[in-house]
């Protein structure tokens, strides 16, 4: 059981992801935009962050940059969620410290698999 922050502006997609991850036994917190994502991450210290690239206000890449510049949050693994055709931006994002990425429209099975993988690779930051 891990704490996962889902930063996604599309409410239904956020709900869908939450449902899946909750069923898989995780605790999910949701942020509808970039600013709240950073605030929630700082407050809740999640084990993993799912970060949509296309968000109003601060976009995912910018959020990633800020997270990686934050000493406390730097170690939290981030999985980027992007639309087909924008993978290139995400690949750049991976160099900026993202652990993985999935492309919309994604399969929930795939998403779950990647989430589990990232959690196993990175020991939970909140374990301390």
């Amino acid at each position: 059981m891990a704490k996962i922050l889902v930063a996604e502006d599309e409410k239904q997609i956020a709900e869908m992801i939450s449902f899946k991850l909750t069923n898989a036994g995780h605790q999910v917190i949701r942020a509808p935009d970039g600013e709240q994502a950073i605030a929630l991450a700082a407050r809740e210290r999640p084990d993993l962050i799912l970060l949509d690239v296309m968000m109003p206000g601060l976009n995912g890449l910018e959020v990633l940059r800020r997270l990686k510049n934050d000493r406390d949050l730097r170690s939290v693994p981030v999985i980027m969620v992007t639309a087909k055709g924008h993978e290139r931006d995400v690949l750049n994002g991976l160099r900026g410290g993202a652990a993985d990425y999935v492309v919309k429209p994604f399969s929930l099975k795939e998403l779950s698999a990647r989430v589990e993988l990232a959690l196993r690779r990175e020991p939970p930051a909140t374990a301390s």
Partner: protein
Amino acid sequence: MTLVLSRSPGPQSAAALVAAASGASVAALGGLVVAGWLTLAVVLIQVLPGFPPMQYNTALGFMISGAALLAAALDLRRPTGMLGGLAAVIGLATVCQYVFQMDLGIDDLLVETYILTGVSNPGRMAPNSALAQSLIGAALLSLSWRSHSARWLLASALLGAIVIAIGTAALVGYATGIPGAYGWGPFNQMAVHTALGFLLLGGGVVGLAWNAAQAASSEAPPWLPTLAGVAVVAVTMCMWYALAQDPLPEPRRGVASRSPNPESALPTVTLAAGLLSALLLGWSLRLAQTSRRHARSLAASNQALTEESHAREQAEETVKQLAAIVESSDDAILAITLDGLIRTWNPGAARLYGYRPEDVIGKHISLLHARKHAEAGIIEKLAKGERVSQTETVNLTKDGREIDVSLTISPMLDLKGQMVGISTIARDITDRKLLDRMKDEFVGTVSHELRTPLTAIKGFIELVLDGDAGPLVDTQREFLEVAARNSDRLGSLINDILDVSRIEAQRLEIRTEPTDLTVVLEEVVSTFRVMAHTKGLSLRHEIASLPKVLGDGPRLVQVFSNLMSNAIKYTPKGEVGIRATETQAGVEVVIHDSGIGLTQEEQGRLFTKFFRGANPVVAESGGTGLGLVIAKAIVEKHRGTIDVESRPGEGTRFRVILPVYSPSSTEIPAQVA
């Protein structure tokens, strides 16, 4: 040219007609006189009692030369020559008898002479007749000569003219009662109808020669003055001789007095006057000819001048119209030298680039280039005579603005075909480019907006199917699986449409780096292995160790995934395979299957948008008809090739060849959009 037309024998011109008539008349005259000799019809032989008779041989000669003239008029060369030669031989033989005072036995050969009026040698042709006979024979012979060169025609005409002179002199002698004019010396005299006959023969020959000369040069023969002069001289000589023989034109007949009166000035005066008039006649004819020729050449050069000035007017008019088109064109039209200096600058160019003509004429064309070497290679292409049509590039205006232009560049050639400059027509396509970008953005936005709800649809279906929302009965599962498959299909359709719209806007971009195709292909194989096995197909793969290619990894995965997924989709049973080898052409990847195959017609349309095969298997599979269009575009962006080989019912074989990466070829140059 021939005397008359050569297609069918028969007189063509008036001259030939007259000559034919003359020949026929003379031959008939000869025939009549021969008949006269045979039937004792004295009138026919003598015309008037007391006149000298036409000798039998003369009549015979007339038949022959008359026939020869007729033949000449009908352009029957061989008979003309043979008959003319025979006439000449008869005449010459007789002349020889006179000159060498001998008897060849030809005079009385055929008939016994019984009319002896003015006859020295019974039966013998008069000397002047014999001479005229030889000359007319020679003239006809000359006319029959193969080549109607001016020289042979002149010879015929001159001989004919002398014959006319002899005949004329004789007729004048009869008319004025000067026997010396028709009887030479103490010998036989020319009969009056003989004179007439020679006049006709001579006239006919001269006419034919004239005709031939005219046919060759379409104007009066140049030898006309000579001919006239010779004719007049010949008449003069005859008359002079006659007068010298018989100074006082007394009305008497018979043998002429043989004591010429040296005191009389008349012959001398006649001779002088005759020669003078011959000279004058010849000279004036020459003058007339010359002035006529001059007038004609003057008219011709006048005509040429008129035509030239007309042509120049037309050319000026054309130039004016072209200039008006160039002036009024919305496109920029400019001419540059081979060195790239601007020579002309139309108002369209001034509007497009903002420079006035005086600002740019003489300046280098690179002034307009937004990027260096934008036009590299174009001049080389032009030098080979090619037209560079519709090149799109970016130009710079006077105020530094970048504008998209479409260029049509053509070589300007001089009259010898040498390239002397370059003409460029530039059209502003900034608006069109903007429209392309807007369309591209629109498609991008739409496809993104479509994807978000699709992600939700797909995700929630999956949640239900996975049992996250509670247990399912089989029918529910079955229906939801259909919904899931169709949402997948919709997803790839959106992706493909996005790619195709990029390809069509020529904005499909690839980012190349040295790429190991082995990795790319292994990824594709691992993705499709399950799909193949699920369908019961064996998947063979032989992937050798390959040199790197300069490629865009994800795009190449897309290409081979598309080919692989098609192979599996369209193969109901058997196997699919992928094989990669290095060949001379580059790295060759072959994807084959033992599937339904393609007809020739289908192969031809395979790489066109929304094309889908006619086989029911194709209809069952969810495809968009865009995948191969995209694959082809991506491969071609890599400077590679893709082709297909297939046979219906046996399988299909796609082959992709990509150039091998060599460290010196840094990057695929951006292609001109």
